[in-house]
């Protein structure tokens, strides 16, 4: 029997109408995005955008599917800079030996991103563009002091990770612009890197998380980067705690006290929202606990202990 369309197939469609284009070159893609106007959206992995379409939370007029732009599928290390193109999937990050060796924090965090099938499609740049405060990637990029490369038909610009977020699920991207690459500078040799998070179930969005990079020279903290996940409108850089750590004596006997002080500082600074998953107070408590754990693990990995 020849397959037949379901009689109600058109009524059963979830997503609202949009114009769909799948350009083959970046130039065509950027032109399509420009022509689409303010309600055009880029479709990469689609693992956040498609649910939003299915639930009709988002209703873009145009979808520019970039999956056929092969030049965006690059994962390279040039000197001390890791460059991840807009089509690199979470699964590609997990398979990359270069990342595991030089940017282990990125690998560690990516193991916590959703599940196998989602990681096969979802992209790092997509997660950063989406800027969900509970997502791992925006915070990890900020912890590395990375940057975002943005393109439009007018040209490209590079923006520091800390300046990219513009509130919850919002970024400084203008209409006609898209993220084509993110860049992660390599921490100094011997830096300790760690990511910890708490989620109700493996692969869920984090209720809270903490990412830390520590560099220790001659018993003193030479560099500290600390970001907490799930606390604010976007990645939350714990600048006060970083200031407290940098320059401090850091050895096995004093580190516990120092990290407790840093955790207290973080708990002071964050102002987490309350939602169905956790109260504000519980999130603040987790921020402290996870900060201590991330710092202790990162310190242990500096080899100074």
């Amino acid at each position: 029997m020849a397959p037949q369309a379901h009689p109600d197939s058109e009524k059963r469609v979830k997503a609202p109408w949009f114009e769909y284009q799948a350009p083959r070159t970046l130039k065509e893609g950027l032109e399509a995005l420009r022509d689409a106007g303010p309600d055009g959206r880029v479709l990469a992995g689609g693992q956040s955008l498609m649910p939003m379409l299915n639930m009709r939370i988002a209703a873009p007029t145009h979808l520019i599917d970039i999956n056929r732009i092969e030049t965006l599928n690059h994962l390279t290390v040039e000197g001390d800079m890791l460059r991840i193109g807009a089509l690199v999937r979470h699964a590609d990050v997990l398979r990359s030996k270069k990342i595991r060796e030089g940017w282990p924090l990125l690998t560690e965090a990516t193991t916590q991103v959703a599940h196998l099938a989602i990681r096969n499609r979802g992209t790092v740049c997509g997660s950063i563009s989406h800027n969900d405060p509970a997502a791992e990637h925006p915070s990890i990029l900020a912890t590395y002091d990375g940057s975002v490369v943005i393109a439009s038909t007018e040209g490209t610009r590079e923006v520091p990770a800390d300046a990219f977020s513009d509130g919850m699920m919002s970024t400084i991207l203008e209409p006609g612009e898209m993220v084509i690459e993110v860049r992660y500078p390599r921490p100094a040799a011997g830096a300790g890197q760690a990511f910890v998070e708490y989620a109700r179930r493996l692969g869920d969005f984090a209720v809270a998380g903490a990412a830390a990079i520590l560099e220790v020279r001659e018993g003193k903290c030479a560099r500290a980067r600390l970001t907490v996940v799930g606390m604010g409108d976007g990645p939350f850089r714990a600048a006060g705690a970083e200031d407290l750590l940098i320059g401090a004596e850091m050895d096995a006997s004093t580190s516990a006290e120092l990290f407790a002080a840093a955790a207290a500082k973080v708990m002071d600074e964050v102002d987490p929202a309350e939602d169905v998953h956790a109260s504000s107070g519980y999130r603040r408590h987790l921020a402290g606990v996870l900060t201590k754990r991330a710092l202790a693990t990162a310190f242990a990995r500096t080899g100074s202990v």
Partner: protein
Amino acid sequence: MGKEQTITCKVNGRSYEKSVPVRQSLADFLRDTLSLTGTHLGCEHGVCGACTVSINGRSVRSCLTLAVQADEAEIVTIEGLRNESGEWHQIQKSFHENFGLQCGYCTPGFLITAIELLEENPDPTEEEVREALSGNICRCSGYSAIVTAVMAAARDMRELQKT
């Protein structure tokens, strides 16, 4: 552009050329247009894993993929798991023998996910199996029998490789 686009794709070894509404999900295309109703839809926003199919060898949520995106792709669904002589895939046999399903609604997604796991990692630990299957929700089995079935399938597939 327009509301419909023509795609060509291969599903379970068979080639199709079809005009699809651009907003149609791959899951709806498989079920409603190709009548391959073995791919089940649970949550339709990527959480439950029931609709998982294989695209170019990788497991993917068909509810979060547009049918137009499957242009030029090779897709395998639950209907494509039997071999040419009509025998079940080892993973299907193993789920059958180990009571790895009750109502069966989630099973197609579990099978596609497990096959990808075993292709990448033919000798997984139980923890690795549980991690790989963590994106598939089953509301009747309690998972233990599913994990047992995947471990048994891994063993059987390794044995078959030797012979």
